[in-house]
């Protein structure tokens, strides 16, 4: 059974519909990328799956549980959420931020203890941030912060990981590091992943399945080969592209006359 089942989902802010009849299934250990231009509904869909926005119509089930009636703590033990923009108000240490992932496993008057700290240490090790343990979370780079948030989501011990543009504001190296990490965690722990991405090539390189969104709908859903075609990308983004292959990796590059020619012989 799919770990995420979204069927007939509609959502609106005020009068404008932001999601229209969206259906989606994600298996354990599968990485699904949401592609689409700004305002196509990627973030809205992720927030609906995490029950941060109330859906208008349709059903969302995670591990068989209806998210609209699940309690916040129950949901947090199923869904790890890595938000996009993030403005931390206090300079907590990286370790303290990661430990916060244990909240849903603790009672309202309970403090984290030994086993929670051990899980947090372990998660920091998994994302390679052990050396940053005691640094203020506000003073590390965007890439390190993104990894810390992934570690925090991991100590929730979720079945599903949702990431909202995990590569935004990251340099080239960190973009690859974060996406590789997401793939590895998904495969090793059997976690179903949904992440929104801006770069079609990131989706081609790191996703098993791609959902191409436009105007609040999923206009194309399937394997990379089926979804990221020249026609689909051109119609959704409104730019001319060419599909190229290099070492059996397929990539999308912009086409057209205004590009600078590279000096490769």
């Amino acid at each position, binding site marked *: 059974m799919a770990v995420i089942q979204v069927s007939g989902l509609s959502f609106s802010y005020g009068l404008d519909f932001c999601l229209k009849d969206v259906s989606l299934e994600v298996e354990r250990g599968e990485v699904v990328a949401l592609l689409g231009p700004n305002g196509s509904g990627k973030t809205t869909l992720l927030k609906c799956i*995490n029950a*941060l926005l109330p859906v208008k119509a349709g059903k969302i089930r995670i591990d068989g549980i209806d998210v609209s009636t699940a*309690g*916040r*703590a129950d*949901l*947090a*033990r199923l*869904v790890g*959420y890595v*938000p996009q923009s*993030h*403005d*931390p*108000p*206090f*300079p*907590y*240490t990286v370790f*303290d931020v990661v430990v*916060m*992932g244990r*909240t*849903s*496993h*603790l009672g*309202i*008057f*309970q*403090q*984290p203890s030994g086993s929670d700290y051990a899980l947090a240490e372990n998660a920091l090790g998994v994302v390679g941030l052990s050396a940053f343990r005691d640094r203020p979370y*506000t003073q590390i780079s965007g890439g390190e912060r993104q990894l810390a948030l992934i570690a*925090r989501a991991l100590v*929730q011990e979720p079945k599903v990981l949702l990431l909202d543009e995990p590569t935004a504001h990251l340099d080239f190296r960190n973009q690859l590091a974060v996406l590789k990490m997401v793939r590895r965690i998904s495969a090793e722990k059997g976690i179903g992943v949904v992440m929104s991405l801006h770069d079609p090539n990131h989706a081609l390189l790191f996703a098993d399945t791609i959902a191409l969104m436009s105007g609040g709908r999923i206009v194309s859903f399937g394997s990379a080969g089926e979804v990221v075609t020249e026609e689909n990308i051109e119609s959704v983004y409104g730019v001319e592209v060419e599909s190229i292959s290099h070492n059996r990796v397929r990539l999308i590059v912009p086409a057209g006359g205004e590009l600078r020619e590279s000096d490769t012989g």
Partner: protein
Amino acid sequence: MKGKAALLLLVPLPVIVASLMVGAYPLPPDTVLSILACKMFPLPHNSWPAVYEQVLFDIRLPRIILAVAGGIALSMSGASLQGLFRNPLVDSYLLGVSAGAGFGAALAIAFLPGIPGLVQLLAFSFGFLAFFISFSAARTKGETPTISLILAGVIVTALFTAALSVIKFYTDQYRLANVVYWLMGSLASTGWGEVMQTVPLILVGFLVVFLMRWRLNVLSMGDEEAKSLGVNVERDRFIILIASTLMASAFVSVAGIIGWVGLVVPHMIRMLTGTPDNRVVIPLSASLGAVFLLLADDLARSLTTAEIPVGILTTICGAPFFMYLLKRKGGFVWR
């Protein structure tokens, strides 16, 4: 760091003992110590005038207990609201508690004088009422965004302040003087009755906030993140708000408006310990808040023969200190 923090928790004890020696009536410090020793241990009874014990246990001790409880109440509610609202300039009075309490007290002083306990009762009730008005004004569709709460608090404060001005305007000079004096904040009229009325309420609020100090960290990450991490944000925020308001209005109802404690003390703790972690900040704020208000009250009752309202002293000490922190450390505690 751990040792330093534990040490800070013990600071109130010597300050309490020293405060017992301060006051208008001259008590020799060594006699104070002997009286205390005889009360705590079965020692041979020395002879001292009976009035010494009266001054010590009926006048100074209740006042000291109230100052300690009040310091804890104001600084803990300040610290918890700063975390909840993710804002450094927030204190215990944010949601209109002080304006509401001021209005309630003025109402009793100006129009219903002579009824015992009414000033406290109305101050407490209107302080709490102001909080509830702010909270319900900010609540729409089952959600209470922090920014709406702050705005509602400003509005409710303005309304109660205006209503207070109306009372001031229509009352006679003598009662007006009493209203103004009450608003300045003082512990001068403290007896065991005031202690019994307020300390239990403050203890309840203290326990709730103390137990939720870790939750407070999670709540300070913002509503959406706290939800994602599994917090029932609306419920938990309401519990902390109620506990903070309970502490602040219980104390304000017997002491009047004593400002700046809730603002200065938690900041001082964050600077001293270098951590924003509420597991450290909350207990240490309670400890330092008790010391701060106790020392301010010691000054209030010993500086001059006519007592200075302690609310004036906390502001005179607190505001420049806050400016110093701002200049010296910039916003470092916040980013």
